[in-house]
């Protein structure tokens, strides 16, 4: 058994767990306030007030909502398939949450304030307990892990989220739910193609699938060499600007597909309330509904994080080399920009019809993404 204990790198596991906890809380707070922001911004767009009673300007509203969700009666309708009905919200939330281990929140080797002291304390403690750890907390990487296939991992996990919706629609034993689930699975599978193919143009520039590495490559030009400006590690000077053309096309294809992938207005056909009541979660209430709700916002955050990291330079920005702690601030600001964009679109655009949605996805976005890959490859060959 001692070989088993020796084969575990405890400091690494503990560090990863602490980071996961911190990032998880961050994401939860982002999601909670995205919901609040959505209600307030929509209210401004529609010329009304929105929630402003709980706390100053309604800032405690997310917590009030959470308490309400927890204490409401958890109704399970008679004729549902019980096991699948209970499983569905979990299936939809867990893969969405699993993505956050590859979010690049900030640069590597950030100097941690008070790191010297912490290192001393932990090492002293481990010597006292005879654990023999030798940790270095003077600098910290703001990501849980990074691996060779980071982006594929993100796509794999977001792809699994479809099952939550499909299973919810099927298990609810209601025609609105079933139709919502079927529509949603068809829509997500269709738009996943546009989403992943638009990313290929950026991958051609980056030459890697590792999310942290892609962000690191965009740190040139004083932190402004973002992929959307044609920034890349391969080309030099003005010539590399040519790559900006496919990158900008890819950015817009990505953005549209991402909105459809997360079932948001104007592509929110699966929950079109005028036709389908509430789509796949018609029969859900209380905490189970809240899980679907959180999953939707976590997915929105994920596609925003991906857009930020792939196109807008991730944590890069002006003065990043002087003040490295600006990194996470830039990162969160960019993510919030995308979340705001979602809300803005919701307040502006009417919903598409289902056949329009499918035609747009298959007959416009997919060919456009394929053409864009060819364009990016051609420019890459000509320029580099």
């Amino acid at each position: 058994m001692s070989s088993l204990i020796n084969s575990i790198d405890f400091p690494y596991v503990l560090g990863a767990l602490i980071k996961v906890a911190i990032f998880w809380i961050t994401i939860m707070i982002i999601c909670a306030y995205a919901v609040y922001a959505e209600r307030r911004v929509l209210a401004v767009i529609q010329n009304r007030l929105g929630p402003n009673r709980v706390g100053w300007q309604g800032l405690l509203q997310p917590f009030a909502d959470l308490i309400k969700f927890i204490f409401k009666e958890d109704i399970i309708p008679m004729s549902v398939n019980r096991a699948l009905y209970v499983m569905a919200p979990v299936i939809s939330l867990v893969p969405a949450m699993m993505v956050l281990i590859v979010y690049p929140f900030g640069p590597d080797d950030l100097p941690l304030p008070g790191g010297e002291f912490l290192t001393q304390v932990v090492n002293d403690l481990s010597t006292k307990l005879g654990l023999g750890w030798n940790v270095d907390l003077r600098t910290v990487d703001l990501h849980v892990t990074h691996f060779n296939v980071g982006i594929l991992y993100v796509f794999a996990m977001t792809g699994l989220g479809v099952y939550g919706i499909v299973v919810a629609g099927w298990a609810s034993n209601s025609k609105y739910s079933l139709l919502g689930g079927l529509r949603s699975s068809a829509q997500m599978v269709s738009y996943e193609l546009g989403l992943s193919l638009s990313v290929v143009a950026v991958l051609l520039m980056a030459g890697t699938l590792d999310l942290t590495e892609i962000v690191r490559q965009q740190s040139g030009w004083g932190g402004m060499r973002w992929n959307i400006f044609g920034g890349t590690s391969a080309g030099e000077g003005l010539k590399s600007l040519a790559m900006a053309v496919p990158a900008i096309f890819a950015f817009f294809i990505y953005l549209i597909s991402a909105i459809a992938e997360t079932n948001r207005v104007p592509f929110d056909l699966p929950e079109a309330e005028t036709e389908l009541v509430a789509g796949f979660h018609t029969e859900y209430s209380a905490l189970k509904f809240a899980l679907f709700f959180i999953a939707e916002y976590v997915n929105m955050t994920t596609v925003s994080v991906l857009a930020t990291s792939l196109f807008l330079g991730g944590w890069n920005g002006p003065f990043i080399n002087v003040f490295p702690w600006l990194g996470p601030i830039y990162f969160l600001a960019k993510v919030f920009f995308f979340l705001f964009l979602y809300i803005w679109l919701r307040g502006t655009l009417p919903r598409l019809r289902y056949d329009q949605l499918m035609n747009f996805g298959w007959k416009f976005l997919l060919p456009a993404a394929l053409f864009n890959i060819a364009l990016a490859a051609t420019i890459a060959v000509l320029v580099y």
Partner: protein
Amino acid sequence: MEQFAQIQVSHLFFLAFASLAVVAAFNVILQRNPIYSAIGLIVVMCSLAGLFLTLAAEFIAAIQIIVYAGAIMVLFVFVIMLLNVREEDAKADRQKYLKFLAVPLFLALIAEVMAVLKTIGNPAASETVPGAVETVAEGMFTTYLLPFEATSVLILMAIVGSMLLARRESKEETDEIEEALTVANQPTPIVEESSEEEVHA
């Protein structure tokens, strides 16, 4: 037994994923309701992806989840829901003796595995670790370029074939649908009015 003396975390991962895969595989074949079978198969595929990770095949593990769990199985679930398949009550009666073939087949397979293990022994893992995207891509686009291109032709054939098969048979039926679609596609003032109201509401 000396293998068990040096047990490591990777062994635990293997055992966890392997037992999950076997239980889920039994679930696939023993359930009456096809949707439970499909969920079982999804679990098998995800745990196989975990096993691929213990073999350092990162790319294949990711592709396993994206292609199998994320695309193929969605198709299965979609068809099951679309056809609204009920649980099959009638068990097979015509071929009820056929299942006893499974036992000799299983024994034959065990014998085969034993024979293979005898010839190759129990080799140590190789020093080079294939599995990163770069190594897979290098093989795919150099030595095995022709099979790779051939699979793309295969995919194209599958697309055309499945569309041909799933197409409705009679001409009148398709004409009817097309007519309904053209009517639906014509912009009517009612649609515009209602959408505007929605914005103000």
